[in-house]
């Protein structure tokens, strides 16, 4: 269980996170939606321990991430898998080496065992055979899938997805979403995703939270969010123009 309470963060006196409260149940897919500049990426960076909050707490398995440093923080991160918006694949390594990297560096495994797990991870994302190519030699959709394979190869308890389908065509968006759903069914991880993809995310989410001006203004099942009477939520999911933008 991830429990975020009254999380606050400001930059140069400008509040970005304004008291976020959120609970992510174990084994669920929770998707955070919200407009660009609404603080989604900053929120995710707090969950990953890449930023320190000005106030509030982030409990992961009962431990407050905001109070941890160094090795204690790394102990929590060992339970994580992260798919970055850009993929964040190491461009000096082949796709196969990217997937193998966390196994080689974090675990004492035999070469044969690593090969077996990398093959399995690449097969799970339907990328057998492209392992020897470098990230720049494969398409955007393939890079995202390699990033997903790298995030899942260590079988983490919690997987974070930062806009994993940004820049992909609608067919690939659905392909990646269904891939995530399928992997979730197989591996039973807890997923936290930040996404803009409306309405596709309603097909895969257990819970959807709307982040607006640094607060979760609505949280519920996909059906509840779609039926919400909150005008901010309705404007976002219908994509209505904002005269202030």
């Amino acid at each position, binding site marked *: 269980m991830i429990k975020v309470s009254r999380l606050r963060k400001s930059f140069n*006196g400008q509040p970005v996170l304004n008291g976020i409260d959120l609970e992510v149940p174990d084994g669920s897919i929770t998707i955070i939606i919200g407009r660009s500049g609404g603080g989604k990426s900053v929120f995710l960076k707090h969950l*990953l*321990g*890449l930023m320190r909050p000005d106030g509030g707490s982030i409990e992961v398995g009962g431990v407050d991430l905001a109070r941890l440093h160094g090795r204690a923080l*790394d*102990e929590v*991160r*060992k339970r*994580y898998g*992260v798919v*970055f*918006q*850009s993929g*964040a*694949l*190491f*461009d000096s390594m082949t796709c196969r080496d990217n997937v193998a*990297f*966390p196994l080689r*560096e*974090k675990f004492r495994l035999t070469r044969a065992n690593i090969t077996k797990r990398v093959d399995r991870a690449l097969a799970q994302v339907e990328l057998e055979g492209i392992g020897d190519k470098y990230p720049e030699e494969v398409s955007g959709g393939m890079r995202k899938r390699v990033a997903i394979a790298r995030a899942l190869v260590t079988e983490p308890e919690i997987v974070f997805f930062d806009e994993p389908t940004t820049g992909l065509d609608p067919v690939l968006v659905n392909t990646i979403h269904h891939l995530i759903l399928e992997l979730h069914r197989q591996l039973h991880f807890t997923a936290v995703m930040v996404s803009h993809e409306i309405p596709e995310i309603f097909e895969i989410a257990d819970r959807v939270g709307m982040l607006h001006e640094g607060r979760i203004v609505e949280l519920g099942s996909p059906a509840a969010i779609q039926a919400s009477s909150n005008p901010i939520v309705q404007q976002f999911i219908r994509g209505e123009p904002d005269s202030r933008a």
Partner: protein
Amino acid sequence: MTEPDVAPALRPFESLGRWATGIVESLGRFGSFLAQGVAALVTPPFKLWPLLGRIHYIGFRSLLIILLTGAFTGMVLGLQIFLTLSRFGSEAFLGPAVALSLIRELGPVLAALMVTGRAGSALTAELGIMRITEQIDALTVMALSPMRYLVAPSLLAGVLTFPLMTALFDVVGIFGGYLVGVELLGLSEGTYFGEMQTFVDLADIMTGFWKSVSFGIIVTWVCTYKGFHVSRGAEGVAQATTQAVVLSSVLILVWDYFLGTVLP
């Protein structure tokens, strides 16, 4: 929380204070970065492959530029010193003059400046691109220290390769001076090398050695720090690369003067 308003008359002092605080904070971050790099270097697990990669990147790939600049620096020194000494009838001292200039001063400084231009800038750009494409964040959230994988190997590679690059620069430069002084201008070979053995001693070599070691630390420290803290996309990478080269070059010259005053 908003800050209290400051009286207009005090605003210049407030700005000055903010500027001074900013400088102190930057220096603190800069020093703390080196401390973290050294801590990652001296605590296990040690990363051999990243170190070998950095030695190849900083050292091996700078060989050609070191050989070229070393040879021409020695040739220019040979020519200019010969012309100057010939006014006093002291051409015999060409060998030691070229060797001492290179070993004590020009070798460490010019080799460091050349490696800064070639490898230091590339190091900053590489780390900067890794930063803006979230590769450094990816390492961090894998619970793998970027200091251990990216910074510590660069620091150690700098300490190991800069003295070797300097030694090469010196040797090639001395032969460049030989080419001009002996082969072109007619000084005897025995005089060129014989006088060199008389005047150059171990203390001179150690001065050059300590300079090159410290330049290795300065260049890799500045360049990794600048790359590590890149922001604002491609423009930020370009800015950081320029700053890294300029700051490294200035620090090399300032530190060279300082060491010149304290080393024998």
